[in-house]
């Protein structure tokens, strides 16, 4: 199954909002990377990734988010993450990625931070 179908993209005030509706294990992580690479190719600058419907994330998916955040910053943009379940927050904290990518409690607060 193509998990990109469970990654919905919309736009608000020039900010791309990617809503993930599938767990981000190794299988879906490669699709997440493809979607994020697509945003980079489109020259997107501001991206919010909403993980409210994700109950599992592995290091490959975290790495994809970190990598794209770093590349967006090089061009003056950024990627922010919002609405993480507790276990996802623990994974980000364990890896240390929460010091690299900005994490917000709500989508509105992530949007407002741009």
């Amino acid at each position, binding site marked *: 199954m193509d998990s990109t179908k469970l990654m919905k993209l919309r736009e608000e005030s020039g900010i791309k909002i990617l809503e993930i509706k599938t*767990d981000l*294990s*190794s*299988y879906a992580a*490669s699709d997440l990377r493809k979607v994020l690479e697509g945003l980079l190719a489109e020259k997107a600058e501001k991206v919010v990734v909403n993980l409210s419907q994700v*109950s*599992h994330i*592995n*290091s*490959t998916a*975290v*790495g*994809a988010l*970190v*990598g794209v955040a*770093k590349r967006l910053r090089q061009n003056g943009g950024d990627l922010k993450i919002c609405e993480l379940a*507790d*276990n996802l927050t*623990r*994974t980000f904290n*364990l*890896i*240390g*990625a929460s*010091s*690299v990518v900005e994490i917000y409690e709500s989508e509105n607060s992530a949007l407002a931070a741009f």
Partner: protein
Amino acid sequence: MANADIKLKIPSAVFYIDPVRAFIGTLAKNLGFARKRVADIQLVIDEICSNAVHHGSIDATVGIKLQIRSDAHSLEILVSDTGSRDNKEKHWLTPERLSEIEANRSPSNEGGHGIFIAKSLSDTYEIQINAAGGTDVRVVFKLLKPTDIKP
């Protein structure tokens, strides 16, 4: 609850990791692990199996073997890859390679976190070269810790 010794073999492809993660999650939950700990166990299995697919049994046809043992005190999982036909990838997780990965790990790196996660979240983490020319990774999760006792 009887002790269990379960053996699984999956094709070496990430597509098959999710069903394994789901099965082990259900098993851990039924063994009495707390919800947070079940999530830890599932993450560790995802990371170990992903490494086995990407670095160990690169040829999808050779597969990955899992041996799962459980009793009233612990859940033990052994993930075995067979190494690839390319000799460079045999025994990919040697002690030297492990040291290198650990030394180079950084939060801003995109990769190299899987082993760190597995070591951090399991009670026992062991690696060794196996007879098939691949790598065995064994993790144990102990049940009888105060944080694991269901409320």
